[in-house]
Every structure is written in C-alpha cells, then in structure tokens.
C-alpha cells in the first residue's frame, strides 16, 4: 500500500463544550475520490477546514502531504484547491479578475496566470462572462467560478465542501462531469455532501459521519452491501396509518423502517414481496421498488434520514 496523502488519527475539534469532530481516523490516497457523507452538523465541514490547514485541531494527529498543518500551514495550502460551502468570491471584481488575483496569491507569475485564466474560463463555461461582475452571476455560475478558482494553482488535492448544494439538476451534472475530468488527470478529490446520489456518483470511498463520529467506511457499493439489502420496497398507507401498518408487516421482510410519510421494507426481491403483501390483503396507496442507496445505509446506521 502506498503512503497516504492525508492521514488522520483521533482527530478532534471542540468549540467550547461542543465537540464538532470526535476522534476520527481516516486515510486518503493519491488519485482517490474520498467523500464525507452525513447530515448538516455532522462535522464534515469542520474536518475539511482542519485538512485545509486553516482551522486548528483540538487533539489527535493529522498529516497532509507528509506535513503537520499546525506547523506548515502555508506549505500545505500551497497544494490544496479549496471550494468552500459558501462561495466567497470577490463580488466587486470581474470573473476573470477573481481568477487572476487568486493565482497571484499562490505567487504564480502574471504570464502563467493570464494563460490559466483563459483555460479555466473555458473549463467553467464562463468565457462569455469574462468581464462580468461576479455580483451579476447566477448561483450555478458562481459555483463553477469558485471551483475554477480553486484550480488556478493546479492543486494536488481539490477539496469541495457541499459542491452542488443549491444547484439545479442540470448544473449539478455539468459540475460532476468537470470533477470526473479532474480525477482522470490524477487530482485527489475530497468531497463532503449530504446528497447520497452525489456520494455514489463521485466517491471511490467514503466515510459516513454523524454527530462528529464515523459510523462506517467503505466504497458506496460495499456500504450498501454491508448495511442494506439489495432492494427496498417503499409503501405509503397515508400518514396516519404508516406506523400501524409497519407493525403488521414487520415479519414479512428482513428489516423495516417506519417513516412518517412511508414504510421502507428491506428485501432481496422487492417485486416478490409486493405480491405477497397484496396476497395477504394489504392495500397500500402507492408502492415503489428501488435499489438500496446510501440513504438507506445512513438510515440503518443512525435511525435518521440524511435530509431532515
């Protein structure tokens, strides 16, 4: 096994009495796309800020590119591209100027940055907006610009905190496509998300976090295999009856979850189970058979849904 690019042991961050990150261990290897999946407040962003060598840990150890961020912050940050959850672009400057000044912060030569700005404008599909003030851009455009900005120094590690929150489906797919291309170039990606589809699409490996701790770790497929069944049958009996029906159906499948709006039945064969249910004279208002997802993994691990 090669040396990890990032390695954390017992990583902890407290804000007063509140423990945001509670003794987590993980390793990230070069060229990997590594995800932090969890609901809002799970400690993902805090973990990212420690890896980003800006926020200091309370205890534990962490090494990034073989260095301790507490001692070598600037040397580590020189090789990171950071996309924060909130776009912190310079609103008064133009699109091209935002990229240009950011390149200069890395000490890159004017000539290099000028060439890079053209390339990144094309990458982010913002060529027509080159001289537009950032204030006038749409949310998706701002997000793409923030990502392009993070790439100006050709970072070894690209860190994306909730990269597609607030974007429409089309904008998300464009972004995912851009991230795939970067991965093909050997860039290591670190992604936090509370969208299970995003985690499944983008991450080779991920950790599921809740309340500052790691609940599980693995590839999306292995997590689903270990913590869920192959298929899920979703039944709706009406909000006042889901609870009551769930109790009656409990014996018919491996595991059942009664949510306020629906009942989830975990099984290897959803269609067969649905037939059994009709045969037993149960009549759900709607029914849906689907493959298990990371959402089900999270529900199994924490008893809660990702988006509440």
């Amino acid at each position, binding site marked *: 096994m090669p040396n990890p690019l990032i390695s954390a042991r017992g990583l902890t961050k407290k804000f007063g009495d509140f423990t945001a990150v509670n003794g987590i261990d993980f390793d990230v290897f070069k060229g990997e796309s590594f995800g932090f999946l969890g609901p809002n407040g799970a400690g993902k962003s805090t973990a990212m800020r420690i890896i980003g060598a800006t926020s200091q840990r309370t205890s534990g150890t962490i090494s990034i590119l073989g260095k301790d961020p507490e001692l070598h912050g600037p040397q580590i940050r020189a090789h990171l591209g950071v996309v924060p959850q909130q776009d912190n672009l310079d609103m008064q400057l133009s699109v091209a*100027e935002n990229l240009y000044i950011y390149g200069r912060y890395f000490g890159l030569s004017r000539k290099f940055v000028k060439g890079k700005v053209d390339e990144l404008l094309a990458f982010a599909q913002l060529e027509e907006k080159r001289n537009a003030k950032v204030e006038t851009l749409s949310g998706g455009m701002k997000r793409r610009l923030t990502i392009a900005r993070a790439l100006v120094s*050709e970072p070894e590690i690209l860190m994306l905190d909730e990269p597609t929150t607030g974007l429409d489906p089309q904008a998300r797919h464009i972004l995912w496509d851009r991230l795939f291309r970067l991965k093909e170039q050997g860039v290591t990606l670190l992604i936090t998300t509370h969208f299970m589809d995003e985690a499944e699409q983008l991450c080779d490996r991920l950790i599921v976090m809740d309340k500052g701790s790691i609940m599980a770790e693995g590839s999306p497929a292995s997590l689903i295999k270990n913590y869920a069944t192959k298929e899920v049958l979703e039944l709706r009996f009406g909000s006042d009856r889901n609870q009551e029906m769930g109790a009656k159906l409990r014996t018919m499948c491996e595991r059942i979850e009664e949510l306020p709006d629906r009942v989830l039945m975990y099984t290897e064969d959803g269609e067969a189970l649905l037939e059994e249910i009709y045969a037993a004279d149960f009549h759900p208002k709607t029914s849906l058979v689907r493959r298990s997802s990371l959402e089900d993994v999270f529900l199994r691990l924490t008893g809660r849904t990702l988006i509440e």
Partner: protein
Amino acid sequence: MTLTQIRQGSLVLVDTARVQSRGALYVAQSRIRQMMKWIWLILGIAIANPILYLISVGIGLGGLIDKSVGPAGVDGVKYLTFLAPALLAQAAIQGTMDETVFPTIEGFKWHKTFYSMNATPLSGVQISYGVFLTALFRAFYTVVLYFGVMWAFGALESPRAWLAIPTAVFAGASFGALMQALAARLEDENIFFVVLGRFVMMPLFMFSGTFFPLTSMPFFLQWIGWISPLWHATELGRHLTYGHAISPTMLWVHFVFLGIMLVIGLYFSARIFTKRLAK
C-alpha cells in the same frame, strides 16, 4: 490543446517561499484593484473635500475670525493657514479608516474573502498587512491631493511644508492600524458604526485643536486632544507648514505617541486576523 492545458501540478508551480516574502503585496495588489473600481469617486471626494472646507470654514468663517483677532492672527497666521494642516491630517485619518474598517468587515463577514485568501499559502498576518498597505496608499494620494489644494489656496508658508505630507500619512497609519484591529474583532458592525461615527470620529474632529488651539478649550476636555492622533499630527503639521512653535520634547512626544499607536495597532491587527481565521 494549448501548452497551458498540460498539467504541471502545484508541486512544480507553487513557490511557497516567494509567497512568504511577498504575500502582503499580493493582498495589497488585489485590494488596489478593488479600489480602482471606485477610484473616480475616491478622487472626487479627495479633491472636493478640501476645496469645500477651505472655502467655507477657511475663507468664509476665517474672514470673520481674521477681522476680529486683528493682525496678530490665530497662532500668528491667517485662520486658513492655521486650519489647513489639521484638515490635511483629518483627510489621512478618514482615508485609512475607510480603507481598513470596511475591507476588514467585508473580508471577515460580508463576503468572507479573507477566508478564501487564507485557503492559499497566505497567512493571517500577511492579509492584515496587505489591507493596511492599501490603506496607506490611499492616505498618501489623498494627502498629496489635499496638499495641492492647500498650496493653491496659499495656505503654506514654510519651505519645508511638504514634510506635513508624511506626518499626516503617519497619523492616518496609526489610527488606521488601530481601527483595523478593532474591526477585525467585530461580530456586529451596526452598533460599531454608530459608536465610531458619533462618539469617536466626531469628537476627535471637533476637539483635537482642529478649529481652535487645544489650549483654548476647558482643561477637562483637553485630554481628548492628547489621546487623539489628529491633534498630534495637527501640531506637527502646523509646525511644518507655518512654523508653529513646538518644544523639542513635544516634537518627540508627537512622534512617539503616533509610533506606539501604530505598533500596537499592527500587532493586534495581525494577531486578531490570525486567530479569527483559524477558528
């Protein structure tokens, strides 16, 4: 595929040592770029301000004062000549305050741009110094313009009057550094602006010996002048532009006071920037 599209990687491209030595300049460059978006407004104010003040208070009110005090003048000179160095220092202070307080609150709170700067090899100390350097630059050209207007109004009597330019900028720097440190600590800026405007800037402007000698105020109010960078700079400015008498001891006191304020401001600003960014 153009040449730039071949990925070299940050390990080849980024020279951290270079950023460590020049980081504050990079920050200042980007701040100046922002300033340029408003430059006509800034220059307009920088020129209109002295013209309006010198005409209304210097010549208008000054005419009445000169008539009533007679040939002895105020501190031995025309009221306009007496007033102008104080307004020069005030312009520097206002310039650095605008260029430290607003960018600092914007960087930490409004647009959080300091956090994006800090995600690069730039440190909190460099960001703090970069903002400060930009404020110095603004104070410098504001004061030079002001000085030009003073010259046009005939408010300069001494051949070494131009030395009032660096002393005014010095006062602006001292006050600006302290304001930057204060602004960096702010969570809620609304109250701050009210307090700053009404209870700090206004009294400083009125009671720093700006419009009349500090000694003509009741003794219990004179302390406002003593702790005011504006008074120290005004005394120096008057000394330089028309030869207002200052003892060698007081000359030192003025410089040392402004110097200490500058050092304290810069130290705390750098420290608070670093701490707040690392939260």
